[in-house]
């Protein structure tokens, strides 16, 4: 496949970015989207080695930076807004699991970073998602120390409850929900954690306090409010649903009543 790529280039958080257009050729439909970007980068590096080409102003910005790691759809490192969709045109996949067979020979593909005030750009397609860590540090845990805990089978948990909790726990913290939301809200991310823990007897003890603390931190860090458009759910690569947001609201309201 031969493709035209319009890629967002930005030197760092302080400078303004712009699109650059590149051509890539002979891409196998079995390659992943990130392997296609690897090929683009090898091409850009070779262009940079050629002093004549560089003098003529060819590709002087070097390889494109993008976050990626496991390439199995589980670490949550990869991001990318591809043709106007978080993680691209396929459903329930991360960018690393998107394969080129989802595109056609001759296509033009536009590639942008997550765009949200909560995630400032570090370079090109790489953004800073430390805000997610900070939200979890505010209360996304059960307050137990290592050791001194009861046997794992002491408290039975129904099969259905464990599965439902797992649905929320499947969140990979990639940030697609925030990038997709017109308000830049982190509600689905926060809800996945709050709900997953609140469902379990171990997590119930601190559920209300946890919801309050995490929502407050989310607000403090500049994420927007949820207006129930459900766009987040549509783009979540792990199929985390807005039913978790409903559960978060319940915990949040109960925390407010306790005040």
């Amino acid at each position, binding site marked *: 496949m031969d493709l035209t790529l319009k890629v967002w280039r930005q030197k*760092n958080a302080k400078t303004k970015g712009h699109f650059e257009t590149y051509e890539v050729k002979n891409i196998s439909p079995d390659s992943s989207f990130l392997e296609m970007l690897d090929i683009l980068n090898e091409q850009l590096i070779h262009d940079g080695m050629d002093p004549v080409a560089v003098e003529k102003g060819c590709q002087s910005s070097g390889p494109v930076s993008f976050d990626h790691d496991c390439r199995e759809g589980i670490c949550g*490192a990869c991001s990318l807004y591809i043709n106007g969709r978080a993680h691209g045109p396929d459903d329930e996949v991360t960018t690393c699991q998107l394969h080129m*067979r989802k595109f056609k020979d001759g296509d033009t593909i536009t590639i942008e970073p997550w765009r949200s005030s909560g995630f400032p750009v570090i370079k090109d397609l790489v953004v*800073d998602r430390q805000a*997610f*860590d900070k939200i979890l540090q505010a209360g996304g845990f059960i307050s137990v120390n290592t*050791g001194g805990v009861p046997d794992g089978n002491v408290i039975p948990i129904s099969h259905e409850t*464990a*599965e439902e909790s797992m649905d929320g726990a499947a969140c990979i913290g990639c940030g697609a929900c925030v990038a997709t939301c017109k308000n830049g809200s982190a509600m689905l991310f926060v809800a996945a954690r709050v709900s997953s823990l609140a469902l379990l007897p171990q997590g119930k003890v601190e559920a209300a306090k946890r919801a309050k603390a995490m929502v407050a931190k989310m607000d403090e860090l500049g994420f927007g409010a949820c207006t129930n458009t459900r766009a987040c759910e549509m783009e979540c690569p792990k199929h985390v649903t807005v039913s978790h947001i409903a559960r978060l609201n319940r915990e949040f309201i109960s925390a407010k009543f306790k005040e």
Partner: protein
Amino acid sequence: MAEKLISKIPEGPLSEKWTKHKSQLRVVNPGNKRKLEIIVIGTGLGGASAAASLGELGYNVKIFCISDSPRRAHSIAAQGGINAAKNYQNDNDSVYRLFYETIKGGDYRSREANVYRLAEVSGNIIDQCVAQGVPFAREYGGLLSNRSFGGAQVSRTFYARGQTGQQLLLGAYAALNRQIAAGTVKSYPRHEMLDLVLINGEAKGIIARNLVTGEIERFGAHAVVIASGGYGNTYFLSTNAMNSNGSAAWQCYKKGAFFANPCFAQIHPTCIPVHGDQQSKLTLMSESLRNDGRIWVPKKKEDVEKLRKKQIKPSDIAEEDRDYYLERRYPAFGNLVPRDVASRAAKERCDAGFGVNETGLAVFLDFSTAIKRLGEDKIRERYGNLFQMYEKITATNPYKEPMMIYPAIHYTMGGIWVDYNLQTTIPGLYAIGEANFSDHGGNRLGASALMQGLADGYFILPYTIGDYLASQILKPKTDTSAPEFDEAEKAVRAKIDKLMSIKGKHTVDEIHKKLGHIMWEYVGMARNEAGLKKAITLIQDLRKEFWSDVYVAGDKDNFNQELEKALRLADFLEIGELMARDALHRNESCGGHFREEMQTEDGETKRDDENFMYVAAWEYKGEGKEPELHKEPLVYENIKIATRNYKD
């Protein structure tokens, strides 16, 4: 020199060693803990659990990871499960049985005392994770569910769908977050350790590169813990995450920590086959699939030809024309033989011309029998996310046609040599999880990596490191303006400047791919003397090419992924040579290390207990010099040494 390898294995009966040892370890009182600092490198299961537990105890911890968040460490990708000797299934499991199966699975090349302790604390891990809110799979009665795994005759693997590593890591990460919020742990994401700093022979700090700004920074502490994982990416293509690397461990080796059994690398039998030369990494399909999947190739060559030409589908091949070769060769364990055995058997069939895809390097993993028995819904509940992942990557529906799989590099059993306290040969330097060598011998059993990472981090290191730190209570905070830090930082800067200045003709990835080919060809699933000697020469030549002709794009004072890769490749080019050297010296076949010269008539591994029943620990002697081999004899007081037998 042998006196350098003091394993500190406690005296006394096996089942009492750890209890007795703990009672003799020194402890640090709470007031003094507040004065002590510990650096932890890596935020996977080992690093995160250790840092959280040490923070809870009151130490000051600094934790570093190369990712943008601690949650991205590669432990997150572990799929199938975690072993624990709970005996919840009433199938006569016990600490002893888990211990025994781990030693046997490791082909009698791991330490009895370490493995017994691992089995002993395995149950606590499950309790801890449940308390943290890890949503393990549950039976309808509400109790924890188990599945079987390779190399085990009981059902002792706990799991959370096909995302067990993710859930355990999120548990440890949550505990870590709690300590970060409490102020006992300070987190440094997007930081890469580039050197270890020793003062008076003790580990006292690190030099790290801030991956966002490119700044070179100094960090001091009273002890350093390496939890940076394995070196599987030496092979370029592996199931490891793209950024996983051996560099932190390698800097420790070059500062004097011995490196043990580097040739023991695990090749996992069930990975998605290579699709072409644009491939960047390989994807694992969990070993848990072998619970319900049956592995086969056609019996007839003409069926193989037709499959390769896509004239027939696998489901067209009649039952009697299929060779379920694992069930045929290993009736007692069948499809659940350990990984090394399953990988070699796949290679054997493919080498004999029975590979089922265009490249001839694939076998089938078939679920049709299980789907018939249990229904598609049950299979979806057990492995849904894995089937979906397979379909996304290959565009084939595994509910209808069998998966195609082939072995790939997955894990490294070798690593930094540690004693019973998980301390390296450098005082104050500890290594945990995959970064050390201690528990898996020549082959790790499935679902045991998660167990080891968390055992080390939650329940072993927090005790043993206290014994060392008790000797540090009078020592002041490490002064990072000390000349030792100056020197280390200077060396790091010089290395980076050198890399940036070469401006050669080859990209970092081009050279890494070449290294990968050498490693897979000569230091892969089957090794021999001539090949290993050739590999050493080829790697040395490639290293010269790298240092004279690599091109590192971008600049050093910025976010620069090419420079990150180049620094890691510089180390892989040295690690690869040591792996080949170790494989050459170990003239026996054991676990994942298969020397063609040493096999039985039916192609099984032939161990040489008389000459090789030891841990090979290599000492760095300086650039261009051959490393020195030290041997730690392995003594089996409790287990009768036997030929590994999965046939009957």
